[in-house]
């Protein structure tokens, strides 16, 4: 039975962790480029150089002595996000959606004392969320106002869009929809719904929730399939241009769609996860192999996007 399943996965071209590491990330990605994506502050600065839009930076806290100044730094902003510069997998991100009577309101509605904010910032600084517990920086940035088209299929938080990019060509994409279970976080292993996106048309496919295929969003009950993502071509272009930004050959680009500002680059991942295959009900391997063959002829961003649209639609 397991052997049959193995063969079925092989046939579908499902990429496993071992092969992703040995034949893609270790083979193509140069470790020298990793700091560009591991440090989100650096990513932000590089993105600005390439004119790629990112959420506006309100301030950076680099050492413990600055922690008390955080309230002053944020005094002009009603809502904001606190995140570690080196965090991974969405760990350590705190979203503040408003204030009342000197307290901060977290996105799930809980009110926080100013000291609780300071404690969280100190935890980030001492490296609680960074790889290898290295001392970290704290970014204070713009809270994305998500586009109302996603309202029917998300609960509280901001849905984000992950696009796998190989040699600057978008390969596969999904949208991660927060649920009550994931407490508003767009993290699949916390219980967010992942839904594939047809690269050619930019419309959503069926979703996957806790490793099960789902047709309706578990909280709102609305169908997931068939939602056209606004500004899809510019999303694809943003993802494709991240190749020039980082020089990382196999990467996952996380984008949010802001109501007013359009697509904003959130972060880039040098070892993107494999759940995207479940959300798309398709394997990455055949698409990656096709690009390995053809990427020599595709340098211009226009050609790369056209190649993706031509080859990686749902019929692929």
């Amino acid at each position, binding site marked *: 039975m397991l052997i049959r399943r193995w063969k079925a996965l092989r046939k579908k071209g499902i990429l496993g962790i071992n092969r992703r590491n*040995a034949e893609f990330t270790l083979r193509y990605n140069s470790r020298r480029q990793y700091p560009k994506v591991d440090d989100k502050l650096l990513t932000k600065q590089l993105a600005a150089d390439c004119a790629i839009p990112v959420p506006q930076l309100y301030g950076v806290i680099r050492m413990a002595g600055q922690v008390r100044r955080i309230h002053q730094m944020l005094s002009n902003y009603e809502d904001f996000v606190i995140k570690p510069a080196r965090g991974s997998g969405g760990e350590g991100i705190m979203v503040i959606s408003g204030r009342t009577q000197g307290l901060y309101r977290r996105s799930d509605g809980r009110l926080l004392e100013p000291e609780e904010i300071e404690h969280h910032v100190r935890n980030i600084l*001492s490296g609680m969320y960074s790889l290898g517990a290295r001392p970290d920086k704290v970014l204070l940035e713009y809270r994305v106002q998500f586009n109302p088209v996603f309202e029917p299929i998300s609960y509280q938080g901001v849905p984000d869009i992950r696009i796998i990019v190989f040699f600057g060509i978008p390969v596969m994409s999904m949208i991660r929809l927060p649920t009550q279970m994931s407490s508003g976080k767009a993290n699949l292993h916390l219980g967010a719904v992942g839904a594939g996106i047809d690269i050619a048309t930019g419309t959503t496919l069926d979703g996957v929730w806790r490793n099960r295929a789902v047709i309706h969003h578990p909280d709102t009950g609305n169908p997931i399939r068939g939602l056209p993502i606004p500004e899809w071509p510019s999303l694809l272009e943003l993802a494709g241009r991240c190749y020039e930004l980082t020089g990382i050959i196999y990467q996952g680009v996380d984008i949010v769609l802001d109501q007013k500002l359009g697509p904003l680059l959130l972060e880039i991942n040098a070892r993107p996860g494999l759940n995207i295959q479940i959300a798309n*009900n398709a394997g990455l391997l055949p698409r990656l192999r096709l690009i390995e063959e053809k990427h020599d002829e595709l340098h211009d961003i226009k050609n790369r996007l056209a190649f993706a649209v031509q080859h990686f639609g749902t019929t692929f």
Partner: protein
Amino acid sequence: MNRKLHLALLFLLLCAAGLSSALYKALVLSFPLLPEATASLWQVEASISFNSLDIPAKLSLFLPRSSKAVAVVDESFISHGYGLTMKQTKLNRTAIWSIRRSAGRQQLFYRALIRPVEGQAPKLPPPPKEAKPEFAGAELAAAQAVIADLREHSADTETLTNSLLQKVNDRELDDNLRLIVGKKPDRFKRIVAASRILNTAGIPARAVHGIRLMQQTKEAELEHWLEVHDPASDSWLPFGRDIEEGQAEETYLIWWRGSAPLADLEGGSRLRVKIALTPSQEEAIDSAMARAQLTGRSFYEYSLFSLPISTQTVYRIILLVPIGALLVVVLRNIIGIQTFGTFMPVLIALAFRETELLLGLVFFTGIIVAGLAIRFYLEHLKLLLVPRLAAIVVIVVLLMAALSVITHKLGIERGLSISLFPMIIMTMTIERMSLVWEENGPFAAIAQGLGSLLAAAAIYLIITNHYVEHLVFVFPETLLVVLAFILLLGRYCGYRLFELFRFASLARD
């Protein structure tokens, strides 16, 4: 592909190097492949006692010699206050104890270990060209009469020797022999007489004395037999032994040759020599090492066995770590179990070696659960990271001490070995687990915790296997094979077992 070829060659090279070295040791040098293989040895002890006469005393004792089937090793002499000198001739070895003054009953000991070997027979010298005359006067006449009688009833040296032995071993000696052997004829006197008669007849012969390595005894009986020179093969052939040729060599320990008695005392009285024999077992590994030393192979000087015993015990554990590392690779990259910290399960498994599995699992779970509870309490105090970790270290140490005391009171002595638990690793595990608990929920935290425990238990079961432990310690070169497999697994691109379940929905169509 070039990289694949490179890796395949490296794999084959490492395997060939490791396996060939291990096979050489196992097959040629007889290092045991299985643990607890034993070789049989004999321990002999000659105890000499006599009454001292308060005058200078000198005692000489023949010592046993190695033959082609047995080796005499680890000799020791216990003789307080005595001077000891050794004398070696072509035929015999002699120890001579001497003292200027002594009083009362004296006791001296000689001890040695007799080990079966496959060696070369020591070359015995040919008989002297001109034999010294053995007899004179009436004895000579008697001897000549016996020889004349034997010659008449025999065809060659062999039959002559055999019928002489038959005659001297008769209960009732004839008159001629009685004259030669003397009063109170014992085995020793009879055989010595036979050798002298043969020498008088122009047949080079001598008496040989030794013991049979047969059974444990406090007083081994000396055996006496003849060696007669065979001019055709220029060798000495034994006559008059009870045991047939084949097994005889490893059964007899030759003590000395000639007509002199075993021990000789000057300046004392009531000499008594007792030879005790004890069979003993030793691990085959020691016997292989000893064999290697006897044959003088320097290979061994650089093995782990040349280290002091205390260091050897450390290496017995250290050499298991690579096996644990290989298992971690298999568990993580082939099966896909998630654990806290890559090599944490190896360290936990090593600690389980001392506590044993069940108790170890209970202790480990207990400390982690208690540590987690306290960690959640500390969370309210909003401590900084490093002080918080330090606080957990203190708590873990206290918990370990408390558990040791409790188990000691309950009489579970194994509980004391809890002190070997890697406390820093446990602290990090508690911290990581509480983070995963908060970020990804209790389910993920408990799943990863169980994964770590499961991995530790699996590694424990394999590294405590006697066979595995024995193999890596006696044949450390097998670690090259382990390295080869780790390198090979480093290029394993197939699915992990858990991925087959993770992607289950994709396999359905």
